[in-house]
């Protein structure tokens, strides 16, 4: 037959083309990403919000915060210095900082220039409203032996403005400057902790960098332990490294376990080395999936790979469908078996693709990727199973082991005996009762944290760092917009006032806003006007001998100081900590971020934003969790929709009644799985729901297989059993994943498969069943 020659050749051409595409995609390095945020919906279409989010995320993804602790400060400092040198030399970091060798002269210049612009709101207010008290306090500070070093000599700043600015600069509560070394040191747990900060060259989501950083940190830990010291580290990089290691491990064992299991099963059942060729469609499927994924999305996420590796179990079903016909088709010939089964195979490809592609319509990029990967993978597997594999198996005569068939026959017999005692209707009633009771106990839970299996040690260390340094960043922040810098600073200032109240109430640990650093231009002008009035109050300064000419000159100088804008102030050394907050100018005006520390009550923060113009609370985590819950509903709708589509598709070959039966069984299986989750006390998550969505599609296959019954009930049941086992081998292993989301998915699919298999025999129409049972007896 010409198709037997033509098809393999056509397929080989396609395969070569896809291989070429893969080679081109991978030539510049693996297009694989581990960035969690690319997996969740980019719910914000506002580019400014996105920019602000990136800005606030960046330190998490590029910075490493390490505390080096030792009972002796000198030891802790020496170790920090050694580690800092080693890290700098590693080439992984753009900057490693353990000691602030501040350039005081640059700081002095900025302080002098910013005497009007940088004065804090409270000090400004006192100067404006109580000039007498302002001067008196200045005098006190001149005598105060504890007022601290003033960076600017008194004769350059008789009014003491630079000292006030210096003292109003915020700093992490628990960290102090060690003047000898310039290091930042905190005391806690009976130890001296030196703060070491490093900023990596690349992004945390380069595949290599997080692992290298984690390795370097492990080596440093060992070194610290030898010196009797301890390290605490906090960084998004470490979570990324952990996630990658875990993903690699899980791919190895989900993929490896499923592969080994399936190969073993093929050998045991078919007793021919050539049966292992059934794995060819799996490899082709993976290739097609990966190429399609990179082509569509530019990159492939590691989570897609983990979940995608479960495709092995589904892809191997296509060859299994016709290989299993060797129990009834004697002699078994590859092409004739394919001809017999390909209509069923095509139907099952169509239903599986519908199931997977339904995932693509959820708002989750992660699932869209998995859907694309799987659908393309299935097409590849189907094509190779139908076009290539029969040619490879051309001369093989399969003589499968007899025991699987005997087992299947025993199972069918068991079912028949059961049905004689308890009719189907009663069984259905019992099943529904079981489901109702299970559903009653089901509770749902949705949290973005299920996507990351963070090990407790990383979390504990991050908490320790937050506790010791007093630095507790939160993911929520305010985005504030204004038409120009003046309006922006006024809005920031207004919101800061409200936040101060929250801080005083203990509802918030702290915040950073550019309005704490500098005053708006009108406020600067107001200050310059007020300074002129100070002459009436400065007698106490004259009394201690300050020359009047010096004071006059100073006031004139202050009045001539240029008005400073945000960009100018941020460029100086005092601006360093504030730079990430400034988003600059765009078409609609200017914008800045207020970052928050040690958050208590998100709802309260949302309320604050409501009555302030131009203020928006960005709470990505909260938005995501709300979205998760909302998506659960739409996922259920998608599931029903995909069932309707499959129903339409099946009406053609099976008629309405048959199609209804074929679709009802998977739905019943899904219902039973839900109930089981309830009985097991497992929560219903978005992921278990997605798992069930998928199972519906796969389980339609089994129903079709049982309905068509090519080769008899027992042979079909055996085919279903083999298919379910392979699928379960790959998805079931996902249930062991340490990422809650993945394991949830695996558990739901596993349960779904068990019920699909158990219910599949009911797919046969009652008439067929009666004749089949007599046929079975006759052959026995």
């Amino acid at each position, binding site marked *: 037959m010409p198709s037997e020659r033509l098809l393999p050749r056509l397929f080989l051409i396609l395969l070569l083309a896809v291989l070429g595409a893969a080679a081109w995609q991978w030539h510049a390095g693996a297009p694989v990403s581990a960035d969690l945020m690319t997996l969740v919906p980019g719910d914000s279409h506002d580019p400014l919000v996105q920019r602000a989010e990136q800005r606030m995320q960046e330190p998490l993804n590029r910075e490493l915060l390490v505390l080096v602790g030792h009972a002796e400060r000198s030891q802790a400092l020496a170790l920090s210095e050694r580690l800092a040198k080693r890290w700098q030399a590693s080439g992984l970091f753009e900057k490693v900082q353990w000691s602030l060798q501040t350039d005081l002269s640059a700081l002095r210049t900025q302080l002098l220039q910013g005497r009007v612009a940088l004065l804090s709101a409270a000090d400004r207010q006192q100067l404006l409203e109580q000039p007498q008290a302002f001067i008196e306090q200045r005098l006190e500070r001149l*005598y*105060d032996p504890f007022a*601290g070093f003033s960076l600017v000599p008194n*004769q350059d700043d008789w009014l003491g403005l630079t000292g006030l600015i210096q*003292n109003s600069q915020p700093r992490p509560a628990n960290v102090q400057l060690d*003047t000898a070394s310039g290091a930042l040191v905190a005391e806690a747990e009976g130890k001296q902790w030196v703060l070491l900060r490093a900023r990596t060259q690349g992004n945390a989501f380069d595949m290599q960098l997080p692992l290298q950083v984690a390795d370097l940190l492990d080596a440093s830990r060992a070194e610290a332990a030898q010196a009797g010291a301890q390290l605490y580290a906090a960084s998004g990089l470490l979570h990324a490294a952990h996630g990658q290691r875990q993903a690699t491990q899980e791919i190895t064992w989900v993929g490896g376990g499923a592969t080994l299991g399936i190969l073993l099963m093929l050998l045991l059942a078919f007793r021919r080395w050539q049966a292992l060729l059934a794995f060819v469609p799996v490899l082709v499927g993976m290739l097609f999936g990966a190429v399609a994924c990179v082509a569509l999305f530019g990159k492939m996420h590691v989570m897609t790979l983990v979940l995608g590796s479960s495709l092995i179990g589904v892809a191997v079903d296509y060859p299994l469908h016709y290989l299993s016909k060797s129990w009834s088709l004697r002699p078994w010939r590859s092409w004739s078996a394919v001809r017999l089964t390909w209509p069923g195979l095509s139907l099952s490809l169509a239903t599986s693709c519908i199931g997977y592609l339904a995932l693509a319509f959820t708002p989750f990029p992660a699932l869209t990727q998995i859907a694309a990967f799987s659908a393309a993978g299935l097409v590849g597997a189907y094509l190779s199973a139908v076009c290539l594999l029969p040619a490879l198996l051309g001369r093989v005569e399969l003589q499968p082991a007899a025991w699987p068939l005997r087992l299947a026959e025993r199972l069918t017999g068991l079912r028949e005996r059961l049905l004689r005692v308890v009719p189907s209707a009663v069984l259905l009633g019992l099943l529904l009762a079981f489901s109702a009771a299970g559903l009653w106990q089901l509770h749902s839970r949705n949290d973005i944290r299920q996507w990351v299996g963070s090990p407790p040690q990383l979390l504990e260390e991050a908490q320790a760092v937050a506790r010791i340094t007093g630095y507790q960043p939160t993911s929520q922040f305010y985005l504030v917009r204004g038409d120009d810098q003046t309006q922006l600073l006024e809005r920031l200032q207004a919101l800061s006032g409200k936040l101060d109240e929250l801080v005083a109430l203990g509802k918030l640990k702290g915040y950073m806003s550019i309005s704490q650093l500098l005053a708006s231009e009108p406020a600067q002008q107001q200050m310059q006007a007020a300074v002129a009035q100070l002459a009436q109050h400065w007698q106490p300064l004259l009394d201690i001998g300050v020359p009047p000419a010096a004071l006059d000159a100073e006031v004139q100088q202050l009045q001539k100081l240029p008005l400073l804008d945000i960009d100018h102030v941020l460029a100086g050394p005092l601006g360093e900590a504030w730079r990430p907050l400034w988003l600059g100018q765009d078409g609609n005006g200017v914008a800045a971020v207020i970052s928050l520390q040690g958050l208590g009550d998100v709802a309260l923060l949302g309320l604050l934003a409501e009555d302030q113009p131009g203020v928006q609370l960005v709470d990505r985590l909260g938005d995501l969790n709300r979205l998760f819950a909302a998506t659960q509903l739409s996922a259920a709708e998608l599931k029903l929709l995909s069932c309707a589509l499959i129903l339409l598709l099946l009406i053609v070959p099976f008629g309405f009644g048959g199609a209804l039966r074929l679709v009802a069984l998977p739905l019943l299986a899904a219902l039973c799985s839900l109930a089981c989750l309830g009985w097991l006390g497992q929560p219903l998550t978005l992921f278990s729901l997605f798992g069930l969505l998928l199972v519906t599609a796969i389980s339609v296959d089994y129903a079709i297989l049982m309905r068509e019954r090519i080769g008899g009930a027992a042979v079909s049941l055996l085919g279903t059993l083999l298919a379910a086992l392979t699928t379960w081998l790959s998805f079931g292993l996902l249930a062991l994943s340490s990422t809650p989301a993945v394991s949830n998915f695996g558990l739901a699919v596993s349960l779904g498969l068990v019920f699909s298999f158990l219910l599949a025999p009911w797919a046969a129409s009652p008439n067929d069943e009666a004749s089949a049972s007599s046929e079975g007896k006759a052959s026995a």
Partner: protein
Amino acid sequence: MSRLLRSLAAVALLLASPWALAFDLADLQRQLSAPAVVKGPFIQEKHLRALPQPLLSKGRFVLARDHGLLWLLQTPLRQDYRIDAEGIARRDASGWQRLPGRSAGAEQNRLFFAVLQGDSSGLQRDFELRLSGDAERWQLHLTPRSLLLKQVFSAIDIDGGAYVQRIELHETQGDSTVLRLPESHGEAVLSDAERSDFAQ
């Protein structure tokens, strides 16, 4: 803070041993930290380059080894300060008010303590120390080690006998502060009023 106090006490103790052959930093520390309480008047002169006259202030201090330091400024204005392990506090009409951690201030207070108590280990971290003289008449010369401190101080000179008598801070900018503690004396216990000041 308390370590600084202990070391000051130690320096005081050291002074009490006239038989020591060579007078070293450990001896000084022991000598200064011997008495539980040291008190006396102080006179502070702040020499600012731009002022013809120094800024003169006077008052009393109480240094309690186990509690901290009371610094009671009396002229030209009255202002009480207290430094202890938890930081610095200032007295106003409604009682002691803790001052929020001030950036450079916190470090300076530590230094101030170390100087008064002759805490050589605390001081050695930040300064090169050079001690001369004997237990009855000694001079301690401090030069800052770090780049950061060098930008603030050029040197600190401390001299004394049984107690610290004179501290002179030379600022890099050219200003200097002279602190004289002319009539310090040791006591075994705090007065009730002083105890209650430390207690709040």
